[in-house]
């Protein structure tokens, strides 16, 4: 059994934790440079505001309905995400962090210990709420794809109390009928059009297609697995977006190691290679990332291993969004040394890139400016500067001669010196950014 915990309107919810006066009122959060809407409260959704709406276009509507507007505050979102993931890591036997606001829980065999998984899901949901103030929905099902689907239904139907457990065939059949085929995890817009043209309108219709049909019309083995997952048969290592057709909101790369690793250098090399892969995907979809998460898992089946089995670190990149492998690597190494417990056997690691936005928005100002640099810190300058030309060559070489032909050897870069985020000269507008309530001393919430 898998659980999917997904935070509701995550960025908006983070803002509301520290400014409760915005509860029950329409709120939106804008992307970097105050460009587009990237998070909406339920009240804002009800006004017809959509994801990606350009701010300047909907400004009259926002004003007319007195919608509160926030600039994105990745320092806050990253820290709140870290808290949510930390708790999930403590509570469930296995956690795979999927994005800044979503995580899969591996609940295999847990019914024996937990009794009802429905009750467990409700406990998790209440726990996240109590510890962070963030509302979530939880879907529980035999496969990841079905857990995603269950979560989606839980989100749309408040009557369910935020939890849907697809514990039997009848309930699964009902759930499949609730979801349009385009809303199935991994089905992009193009496939959705193709499918509806073929008379396949719902997830239930899709679950009925034959293996052969899926292989032929849904991108080969990826599509066949997707259909199997909908039918309730778990496919290990499923990465529905692996075909690269779908621009992702977050990019994750995780692997179980071939054998458990105990040496820091080994795990670091593994993380470096996952990160290189993720950064390559990031560049391929022409995005940069604001937030980096690294996580490590121990073998939960080992008798001498104590929970938590997974530990994670989330960092809002102090030098600003980047797609540069070397920059990301130097941060990842520092994060890894925090997570590292000497004498531990690790069996899995992963990285997640979040807060994705295309480069260039607001960067025009940098034409005659040095890129994001932190004054008086030489090392910071040399390590944290994007090298798009180098990255382009790297990607070109790897595309031509095969993945991993050219790799970054700098997996042993020293950690960046301390120093809190300094707004880069080109960072541009963030007119309505809230304070970094949880990560900067001078931004702490003030109570009277």
């Amino acid at each position, binding site marked *: 059994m898998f659980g999917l915990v997904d935070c509701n309107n995550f960025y908006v919810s983070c803002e509301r934790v520290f400014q*409760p006066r915005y509860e029950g009122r329409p709120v939106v959060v804008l992307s970097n440079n105050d460009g587009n809407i990237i998070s909406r409260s339920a009240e804002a959704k009800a006004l017809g505001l959509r994801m990606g709406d350009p701010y300047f276009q909907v400004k009259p509507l926002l004003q007319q309905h007195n919608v509160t507007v926030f600039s994105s505050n990745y320092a806050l979102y990253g820290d709140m995400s870290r808290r949510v993931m*930390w708790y999930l890591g403590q509570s469930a036997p296995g956690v795979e962090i999927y994005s800044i606001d979503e995580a899969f829980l591996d609940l295999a065999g847990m019914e024996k210990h937990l009794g009802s998984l429905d009750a467990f899901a409700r406990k998790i949901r209440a726990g996240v709420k109590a*510890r962070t103030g963030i509302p979530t929905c939880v879907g529980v099902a035999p496969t990841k794809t079905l857990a995603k689907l269950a979560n989606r239904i839980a989100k749309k139907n408040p009557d369910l109390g935020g939890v849907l457990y697809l514990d039997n065939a009848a309930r699964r059949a009902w759930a499949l009928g609730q979801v349009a085929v385009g809303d199935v995890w991994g089905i992009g817009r193009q496939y959705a059009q193709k499918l509806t043209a073929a008379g396949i309108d719902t997830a239930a219709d899709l679950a009925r297609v034959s293996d052969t049909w899926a292989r032929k019309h849904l991108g080969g083995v990826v599509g066949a697995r997707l259909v199997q997952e909908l039918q309730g048969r778990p496919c290990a290592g499923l990465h529905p977006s692996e075909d690269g057709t779908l621009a992702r909101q977050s990019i994750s790369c995780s692997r179980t190691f071939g054998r458990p690793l105990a040496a820091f250098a080994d795990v670091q090399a593994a993380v470096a290679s996952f990160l290189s892969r993720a950064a390559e995907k990031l560049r391929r979809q022409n995005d940069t990332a604001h937030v980096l998460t690294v996580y490590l898992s121990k073998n939960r089946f080992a008798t001498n291993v104590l929970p938590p089995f997974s530990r994670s670190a989330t960092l809002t990149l102090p030098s600003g969004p980047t797609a540069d492998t070397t920059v990301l690597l130097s941060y990842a*190494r*520092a994060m890894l040394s925090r997570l590292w417990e000497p004498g531990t056997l690790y069996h899995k690691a992963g990285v997640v890139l979040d807060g994705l936005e295309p480069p260039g928005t607001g960067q025009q100002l940098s034409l005659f400016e040095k890129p994001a640099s932190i004054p008086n810190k030489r090392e910071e300058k040399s390590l944290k500067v994007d090298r798009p030309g180098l990255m382009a060559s790297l990607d070109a070489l790897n595309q031509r001669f095969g993945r991993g032909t050219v790799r970054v050897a700098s997996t042993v870069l020293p950690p960046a010196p*301390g120093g809190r985020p300094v707004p880069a000269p080109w960072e541009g507008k963030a007119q309505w950014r809230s304070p970094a309530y949880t990560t900067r001393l001078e931004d702490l*919430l003030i109570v*009277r």
Partner: protein
Amino acid sequence: MKDVDIIAVPEPGSERFLLPLFSYLVPAGFPSPATDHLEGLFDLNRLLLRHPDATYLLRVSGESMAGAEIHAGDLLAVDKHLEADHNHIVVAVVHGECTVKRLVREGQKWWLKPENPAYQPYEITDTDELRIWGVVTHVVHELIPGKLTALIQSLD
């Protein structure tokens, strides 16, 4: 399992504040022979952040809790996970704003009480309306006024 596994990564390179615990008095001078008697490193986070995922640092403005030795500029460690009870000092949400007060039960009535005669207690007439943001577990009060402010500025 370690009691507190801090996975907070504010920024790479920023170290935890580890204070050495010595088993005997440290004579002045360097290098210190006391290092042989180092008992371990005590992380103040373990005290202030017992539940690291649920604890938040807040700052105080005003003197409404002066009687409880909570003063303007103090740092509060606030645990959102702890269940608030009678006599706890809490951060409560009143009319959408966060306020620090003592939660007091008198018979069937609940109050948010300031500890300063210049301020009025607030009666919670409708318990549905009361929202506890978190329970205050520790107060960090600076004895040399301005030092904390200076520290904060030096971090910039």
